[in-house]
C-alpha cells in the first residue's frame, strides 16, 4: 500500500476521525487501528491525539471514561451536534475536490 504523505493527510484526517467516531463511540487505540485498516496507512497516536484534543476543545466530540473488560477504563469519544454539522459541511467540499481531481484524470475509476 502506498504511503500517504503527511501533508496530504493533514487536511482530511480530522474529518476521517470525526467519521469514525460518527460510526459509534470509540477510544484512541481502536481509532488508530481502524484508520490503519481503512487504508490511511500508519497514522500514529502522536498525530491522532492532538486532533482529538482539538475536536474536544471545539466541542465537536465529547469524551467519557468507561470501564473496559480487558484492562483499565478507557476514554470513549462521541460525536456532538457540532461534530455532525462539521461532517455535513465537509461532505460537499470533499465531493467537489474528488470530482475536480477525477476530471484532472487523477480520480478513482468508476
Amino acid at each position, binding site marked *: 500500500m502506498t504511503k500517504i504523505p503527511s501533508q496530504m493527510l493533514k487536511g482530511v484526517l480530522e474529518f476521517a476521525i470525526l467519521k469514525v467516531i460518527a460510526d459509534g463511540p470509540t477510544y484512541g487505540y481502536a481509532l*488508530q487501528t481502524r484508520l490503519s485498516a481503512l487504508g490511511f496507512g*500508519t497514522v500514529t*497516536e*502522536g498525530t491522532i491525539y*492532538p486532533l482529538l484534543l482539538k475536536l474536544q476543545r471545539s466541542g465537536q466530540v465529547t469524551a467519557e471514561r468507561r470501564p473496559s473488560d480487558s484492562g483499565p477504563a478507557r476514554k470513549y469519544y462521541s460525536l456532538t451536534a457540532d461534530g455532525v454539522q462539521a461532517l455535513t459541511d465537509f461532505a460537499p467540499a470533499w465531493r467537489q475536490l474528488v470530482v475536480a481531481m477525477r476530471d484532472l484524470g487523477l480520480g478513482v475509476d468508476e
Partner: protein
Amino acid sequence: MQLNVQKLIAPFHGLNRPYADSLISYLAGDLRHDPQALREAITDIVDNMVAATADGQTLKDYFCDDLQTAADDILAELPRRKFGSWCRYWWPIVNVAATLILASGLVRLPASPRASDLTANSGYVVILVLGLWAPRGFNFNKLRPGALGRLAGFILLGFALSALIMFLLGLLPDCALPVFVLALICVGFGVVNVVMSRLKQWPLLVTAGMWDVMGVTFIAGGFNAPVAVQGVLFLVNVLCWGASYVSLFWVNNEQV
C-alpha cells in the same frame, strides 16, 4: 495527587520503557497547562500505549518517531493554566524562599537586626527558587536547540534577576529592623497562608500556624528570647514548610 511516572511506565519493557519514560516525564514536567487536563491526557495516552504494546506494536511505531514534536503538539491543544493555579503552584515556593531569607538572615540572632541581614542572601535564594523550575527536554534522543536555549535562558535569567534584586535592595537604606516589622512579616505570611489553604491547599494551614507562632515570639520576646527557643522555632518552621510542600505534591491533587 502527583502522577507516579515509575508506576505509569511499569507495564512497558525493553526499548518501550525509556520511550514511555521520556514522553511521560516531558509531559508531566510541563507547568504552562492546566494540571487536571494534563493528568487526564497522560492517563489516556498511557492507556492507549498499553493496548498497543499488548498487540505487539512498539511505542516508536505506535506513538511517533519524533517524540518531542508529538508531545509539543499535544501540549499545544491543552488549556492553559489559570491564574489561580499559577498562584497555588508558586506560593509554596515563595513561602520557602521567605523562610530561607528570614532564616539565613537571622540565624545568628543579632541583637539589633538590620534590613541588610534579610537582603544579603536574597539573590542566592532567587537562583535557588528558579532552579526548581527545571528546563525539560533533555531526555530525548534528538536534543533540540530549543532545549539548550531554554537552559541557557534559565541560567541567564536566574543570574540577571538575582543581580537586579541585589542592586535594588542595595539602594534601600540599611535601617534597623524593628521587632514589630519582623512580626508583621511573619503574621502577614501566616494570613496569606490561611487564605491560600482555602484553595485546596490545607497543608498550608500548618505553615500558617508556624509563621504566626514566629510572629508572636518576636512580639513577646523579641530577640531577648532565649537563643535555643528561637532556634528551635526556626527549625520547626522550616521542617513544617518542608512537610507542607511534600504534602502539596502528594495530597492536594493539584500538581502533576
